[in-house]
Structure formats: C-alpha cells, structure tokens
C-alpha cells in the first residue's frame, strides 16, 4: 500500500528527470500512479468488501508513538476507485490535450504528486498523516490552479484557494490535536471505535475539523474559491472538481460523521443547513454563467453541497445515497469538464454565446455530453437517476423541508444541465461572433476519455449491481449499520420517484421556456447581486490580511539583533514560567552562605555591574578578570580544586585574548545606548527568573545516586582517586573526546578568521 504512494513520487521524479525530452507524454508517465492504485484496489476489493480492512503500519519513531498507519476499509476503497478511475482517464486525456511545452512536464509532475497526496488522505489512519497529505493537496492545487501564471486571474484564484483551504487545514489540525487528546489516540480507527466523551474540548475539536472540511469542499460560506479554481488548465479542473480535492472534505466528514453525531447533537443540523445552502446557491449561480467551465464549476459547488450533507450526516440511509451519488458525480463531472476542454481545444472558446454548430461538427463529443448531462440531471435510464433515487429515498421520512430543498436544487440542476447542452451545442446568440471547431476532433483521448466515463454513467444505470456492494459496504464501514438501500433502475412507485419526477417535470417546463426563465433569473439576480457574496467578502478581507501580515512581520522581523535576542530570551523565560506558575510549591529557603562566599560575591557583583558603566576598553579587561578569578575562588569553596585551577588558567588566557583583540579596536566604546529602560527590564526579568528557578530547583533537590555510584566505583573500576578526573577521562571519556573536537573546530575557526584579519591590519599599517 505504501508502495502506491512511492509509485506516485517515483513517477513525478522520473518526469522531472526527463523533463527536457518527455514533453506531454509526461502525463502517460504520471498515469502510472492512478493506474497502480486502480489495479491494487480492484485486486483488494473482494477482501476489503468482505469486512477485513487492509492495514499497514510503518514505524517511524515507534518510541514516540509516531507511526505511519495505513488502513483501507470499504469506505476508503470507494474513494480509491473513484480517484484512480477518474485519474487514469484524465491523465490520458491530458497527454493529448496539452501541446509539448517546456512547462508541461512540471505540471504533469505536480498533478501526479497531487494524485498521490489524495490517495494518501483516504488511506491514512493517523490524523496527523491525513493533515500532511491534506496540506500537500493544498500546495499542489495552488501550483495547478496558478499554472497560467501570466494571467492575473489564475494567480489570484490560486492564492484564494490556497488561503481558504490552507486556513481551514490549520483549523483542522487544531481540531485533530484536541480530538486525539480527548480520545487518547491519533488513529481514526480507535477514535471511531471508542469515541471520546462529550466535553467542551471535543465540541471545539468538531467545530475546527468541520471548518477544515467546509473550506476544502467549498461549502457555504467558503465556496467562492472553487469557481475561481477553474482558471486551472482543464484536465486539472476535471480532476480537482470531480474526484479529488473537494472530495477530501467530504471524505473527512463521512469518516467522522457518525462519531461526531454521537458526541455532538448540533453536528447533523449544521451539516444539513450548510449543505442545503451550498446546494441552492451553487445551482442558482450556475444558471447565470456564460462560460461553460464556470457553469460547471458552480454546478460542482451545488453537487458538493448535496454530497456534503448526505455523507456528513452520519445516518446510514443518507450516507448510502451520498456514496452512490459520489460515484455518479465523479463520472459525469469529469466527463463534462473534459468535454469543455475538448470544445475549448477545438473551437478556441467556451463562451456559450458564441459556440455554434458543434452538434454537427463534433458528434462524438456531443453524445458524450448528452450522456453525462443526462446523468447529472438525473434523467431516468442513467446512473445519475439511480443514485439520486437512493438519495431521495434516504431523505423521505425526514423533514419535508429537507426533501423540498433537495428537490428545488434538483430543479436547478436540470435547468443548468440543459443550459450547458444547449449553450455548447446549440446555435450562437444573435449579435455574437460565431465560433466552431477549427479542426475535426481526431479519434483520440480528447474523444475517448470523456466518452468512457460518460458511458460508464449509462452502463451503471442498467447494471447498478456493479456498485451496490461497494456503496453498501462503504456505508457499513462508516456508520456501522447496513442502510438496506436500493440501487435500481426502476424503484417502483415510491415517494422518492415522485420527487424525482417532480424535479424533472418542473425542470423540463423551465427549460422549454427559456425567455421567461431568463427574465425571471435576471430579475431575481438583480436583487441577489445586492447580497454580499463570498467573492466580495474575500476581496475585501484580502487587503486587511496583507496589512496585518506586513505589520506583524514589521514588528517581529525588524532587522535589529538586540530585538531578536530580546524576543528569544523572553520566550525562553516565559514558557517555563508559564508551565510552573499556578501550582508553585512552598519554596525552601537555602542557607545564607559563609562569610567568604559573601566577600567573593561582593567582588564578582561589583565587577560585573561596573562592566555596564565603563567606557574604556582596557578597564573592561581588568573587570572581566575580577569576575573570573572571583568565580574561581567560589569553586574552591564549593569543593572543586580542579575547577578552580582550570578557571584561573582559562581566565588568564581569555584576558590575554581580550587584551589582544581590544588593542586593535577603538579605545573607548563610543556608542550611545538607546532604549535603556526596555533593556534593563529584560535583564532584570532574566535575573529574577534565574533566582526563582534556582530556588525551585533547590526545593526539589533529591538524592545524588549517580554521584555516590561514581564515588564508590572510582577506585575499583578506574583505579583513580580523583573522581572528577576519573569521570572525565574514563567514565565519560567519549564526552571529553567530543569536547576536544569542539575545541579543535573552534581553533580552526579562529585561525581562519583572525589570520587574514591580522594580515589586513598589518598591511594598512
């Protein structure tokens, strides 16, 4: 399983290695990744569907409980098949869609990594590795959307997507940590089997995780990034909008939905409301687009809203319908995006006001679009209809408002599906310059890739059994109960059929009267435009965000070394202080110390404080010596004659060095110290912290087992009576070796720095 991820990375590296020669065939190299996943999933399908998840654990730092846990159950398997199936078709399509260009291989490599990251999300069992893959899709999608970096539209769309999904990802990480903390495990399988008890922390965790999913899956009010993301080259849009990226959020709410519903009673209502609003807004906005791709993008928003509320609800019947619809959506949406790509490729535009005569000149593409759009509109005899029936069936018996809202969105879907077909293949609008294909479509992947996916949408309509087991087992995997749902071409006279028929009928009536519909859409649209939109809010918020970033980095990264050191020092004080403050034990008061200590102390403190005030550099040398020799005296009192001697020796050497260097520098310090007060405050803070820390350490000073064992073993094991020496050269001999190495390195450094400097000084005379 981990090997599949490695294959994606290897394919991407291979593309980059041969980027000079590979050209657009890079996508064929990249398709090895999804292809391997597809083959693997098909071979594992029977075992996993039988209820035995495929589990793999790779220890990374096992002692810290850091492991790379992969777990593929039926739910993950459904996503794997969707990702890989759509992936293979789209990669092959892309290899024909692009012309050979110098940047195409890099794009292909990015898309391969993106596909691998998506696989990583659905197979990870560890929350943190989900997060890592999640952010990897954010980064790679940024690169994919912003591929046409000479276009301002693409750059700003890429930034929009990265900011929204990136911020959501960070919120999600916070939620993951809180959730894992409450549940006692980072493994989703553990959290699902033993859910954490309801608490404020868990509520916050669910909210944050929901935020991550809502942003990633482009749900209201964060949906605005997705239509912009269609600035990506069409194959990437097809992949991002159909099978990946936006499905990540849906995957997550589906995976955790049942657990969340059990521990937070607000989860299901929130999911439903968010989903319904997204569904209606997306469908409505799709009606007003003249760019085929933008029309599809808003359609995606609408479909995602439906999938989000179904799969995230945690209720078995809804999840069943949602997963059936997920498969349908991947098939028709990928196909339709590729159809738009083919039209754009051949006709040079995708403006529905200009496209004309495509039905005759591109018959294969036309019928592909018909099949896919029919599935999208849930016309009977398509798999889209079968899936939507299952979804309606799940909603029947819930509140009527819910199913009415779903029906309303379905009506919009019928209308924008028709708008897509008529716009793309019907006549051009009067007053617009007509555009048609400049060359006939070759019988290539431009034709076949979408055709295969759209065809699958029809075949599955007649043979829904092929996906029934998959959807059923996936539902059981996340909700624990079988939905007893049906996937059939003719459901019989059930309420769900009534709702489907109603949606189709009203949709058909609206489609049949385009002028009136357009007028109504225009009238309502004028009103709706007055409402704040997601894009507008983002546009207003962005300058504020940038100003905030400028201000905060201006404060934190101001270029002043003293400021940086002050921040480091204060953080080093604040963190441990914050950890102990609040439950401080009563501190024991240490003995005052003998007279000699106080005398030496007076010498050291006096010399140290004078160091602040002296202006002449040579006075510095003398004062420094005073401190050092004083310390040596203290060591002697504390029972360390070796230390005392070493300190004397080293201090003498250091004074000599200082004297030597200061000789070359100006005789006095001639800087005016500004901002004295803040520096003094920081210094006093550090001093008090050390004092308090010392008292605290002294309170907890226990035995000295290590010292006693060294004392006992010095003579028998090392035949030495000076225990400090024995420790340095025998017990901890290798540490001393390390110390010597440091000294050698320092000596080399000194020689390298000082010798040329002295030579320069001498030359200057």
């Amino acid at each position, binding site marked *: 399983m981990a090997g599949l991820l490695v294959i994606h990375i290897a394919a991407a590296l291979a593309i980059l290695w041969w980027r000079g020669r590979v050209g657009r065939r890079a996508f064929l190299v990249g398709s090895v990744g999804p292809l391997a996943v597809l083959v693997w999933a098909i071979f594992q399908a029977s075992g996993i569907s039988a209820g035995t998840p495929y589990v793999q654990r790779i220890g990374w730092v096992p002692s810290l409980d850091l492991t790379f846990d992969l777990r593929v159950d039926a739910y993950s398997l459904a996503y794997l098949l969707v990702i890989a199936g759509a992936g293979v078709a789209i990669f092959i399509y892309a290899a024909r869609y692009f012309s050979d260009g110098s940047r195409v291989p890099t794009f292909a490599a990015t898309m391969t990594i993106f596909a691998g990251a998506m696989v990583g999300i659905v197979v990870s069992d560890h929350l943190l590795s989900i997060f890592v893959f999640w952010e990897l899709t954010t980064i790679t999608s940024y690169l994919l959307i912003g591929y046409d970096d000479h276009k301002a539209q693409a750059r700003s769309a890429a930034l929009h997507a990265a900011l929204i999904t990136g911020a959501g990802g960070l919120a999600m990480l916070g939620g993951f940590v809180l959730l894992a903390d409450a549940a006692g495990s980072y493994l989703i399988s553990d959290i699902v089997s033993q859910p954490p008890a309801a608490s404020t922390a868990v509520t916050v965790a669910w909210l944050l995780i929901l935020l991550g999913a809502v942003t990633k899956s482009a749900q209201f009010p964060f949906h605005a990034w997705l*239509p912009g993301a269609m600035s990506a080259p069409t194959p990437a849009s097809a992949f991002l909008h159909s099978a990946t990226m936006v499905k990540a959020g849906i995957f997550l709410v589906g995976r955790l939905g049942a657990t969340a519903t059990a521990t937070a009673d607000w989860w299901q209502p929130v999911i439903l409301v968010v989903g319904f609003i997204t569904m209606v807004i997306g469908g409505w906005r799709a009606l*007003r*687009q003249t760019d085929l791709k933008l029309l599809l993008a808003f359609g995606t928003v609408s479909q995602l809203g439906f999938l989000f509320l179904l799969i995230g609800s945690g209720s078995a019947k809804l999840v069943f319908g949602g997963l059936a619809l997920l498969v349908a959506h991947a098939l028709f949406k990928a196909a339709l995006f590729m159809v738009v790509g083919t039209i754009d490729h051949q006709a040079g535009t995708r403006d529905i006001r200009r496209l004309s005569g495509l039905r005759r000149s591109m018959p294969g593409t036309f019928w592909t679009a018909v099949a896919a759009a029919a599935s999208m509109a849930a016309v009977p005899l398509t798999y889209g209809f079968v899936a939507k029936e299952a979804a309606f069936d799940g909603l029947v018996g819930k509140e009527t408002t819910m199913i009415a809202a779903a029906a309303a969105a379905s009506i919009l879907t019928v209308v924008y599906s028709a708008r897509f077909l008529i716009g793309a293949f019907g006549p051009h609008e009067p007053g617009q310059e007509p555009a048609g294909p400049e060359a006939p479509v070759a019988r290539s992947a431009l034709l076949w890739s979408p055709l295969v996916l759209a065809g699958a949408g029809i075949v599955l309509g007649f043979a829904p059994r092929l996906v029934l087991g998959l959807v059923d087992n996936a539902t059981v995997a996340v909700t624990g109960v079988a939905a007893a749902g049906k996937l059939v071409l003719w459901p019989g006279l059930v309420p769900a059929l009534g709702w489907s028929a109603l949606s189709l009928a009203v949709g058909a009536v609206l489609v049949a009267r385009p002028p009136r519909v357009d*007028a109504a859409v*225009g009238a309502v649209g004028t009103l709706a435009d007055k409402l704040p939109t997601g*894009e507008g809010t983002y546009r207003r918020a962005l300058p504020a965000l*940038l100003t905030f*970033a*400028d201000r905060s980095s201006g404060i934190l*990264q*101001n*270029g002043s*070394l003293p400021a940086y050191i002050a921040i480091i020092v204060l953080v080093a004080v604040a963190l441990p202080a914050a950890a102990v403050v609040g439950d401080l034990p009563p501190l024991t008061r*240490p003995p*005052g*110390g*003998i007279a000699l*200590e106080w005398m030496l*102390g007076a010498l*050291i*403190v006096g010399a140290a*404080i004078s160091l*602040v005030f002296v202006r002449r550099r040579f006075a*510095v040398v003398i004062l420094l010596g005073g*401190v050092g020799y004083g*310390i040596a005296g*203290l*060591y002697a009192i*504390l*029972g360390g004659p*070796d*230390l005392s001697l*070493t300190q004397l020796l*080293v201090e003498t*050497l250091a004074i000599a060095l200082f004297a030597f*260097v200061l000789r*070359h*520098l*100006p005789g006095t310090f001639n*800087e005016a110290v500004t901002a004295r007060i803040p520096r*003094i405050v*920081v*210094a*006093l803070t*550090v*001093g008090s912290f050390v*004092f308090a820390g*010392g008292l605290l350490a002294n309170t907890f000073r226990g035995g000295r087992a290590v*010292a006693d064992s060294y*004392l006992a073993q010095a*003579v028998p094991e090392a035949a030495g009576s*000076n*225990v400090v020496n024995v*420790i*340095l050269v025998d017990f901890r001999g290798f540490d001393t070796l390390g110390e010597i190495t440091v000294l050698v390195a*320092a000596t080399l450094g*000194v020689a390298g*720095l*000082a010798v040329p*400097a002295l030579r320069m000084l001498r030359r200057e005379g």
Partner: protein
Amino acid sequence: MSLAGLLIAAVLFAVGTYLVLQRMLSRVIIGLGLMSHGANLLIMLSGPGPAQPPVIGADGGGLPVADPLPQAMVLTAIVITFGITAFLLALALRSYVLTGSDAVEDDIEDRRISRAKHTAEVTPPLEVHEVAE
C-alpha cells in the same frame, strides 16, 4: 546551595543579558561570558555548599564530600566557553577589520521587509451573464 551563590548567579545573568542586548560586538561577547559564569555557578550550586573535594582518601575536616558530577560538567563547560569566546573574539576582530565598526547594524534586508507594503492583486470579478430582459 547558598543564598549568596544564587544571588551572584542571578546578577551575572542579569548583567550578561543587558550586555548581550547591546550593539557593540565586544560587549555582547563579554555578556555571553558573564552568562556562562552564571550558568556554571548554578550547576555547581546543586552540590551541598562548602565541601571537601571528591577525592578518595582526602581529609575534608568534617565537610561533606562534594558532588563530582556537576564538577565534571562544569569543567567541560569552562573549556568550551573559552573556545567559544576565542572564536567570537576572532569574529569581532574580522568584522571590525572589514567594516571599520564594532557595532552590529540592522539587517538591511529585514528592514526592507518590515517597511514593505504588499498590495492585493485585484482581478476583475468572475464574469456573470446579465440576462436580457
């Protein structure tokens, strides 16, 4: 541990910090040296106070035997500190020879960043079809 020793260490740290926060490299080095003295002293203070050397068979005159472990650590620290001081002094000398000043100036690149004003790239909103009445 004695109160006297702890006070000395605290003062060494405070003065050391104050000097490290200056711009003159030679003062920064002195500050670091003072802080090192303070740290070494703190480690030594974990012992019993006035004590006899940890030498087997030595006559301590009734004092407790000092803890050899902090002594071994501090001995290493003294030597390493010396190495670092020597290195920093060489660095200061080099810097003075090259720039003619002992002071650390603000990083120009950082200062430019801190004064930068980034503006959002405003793109036309996504096209919305105005349906004819």
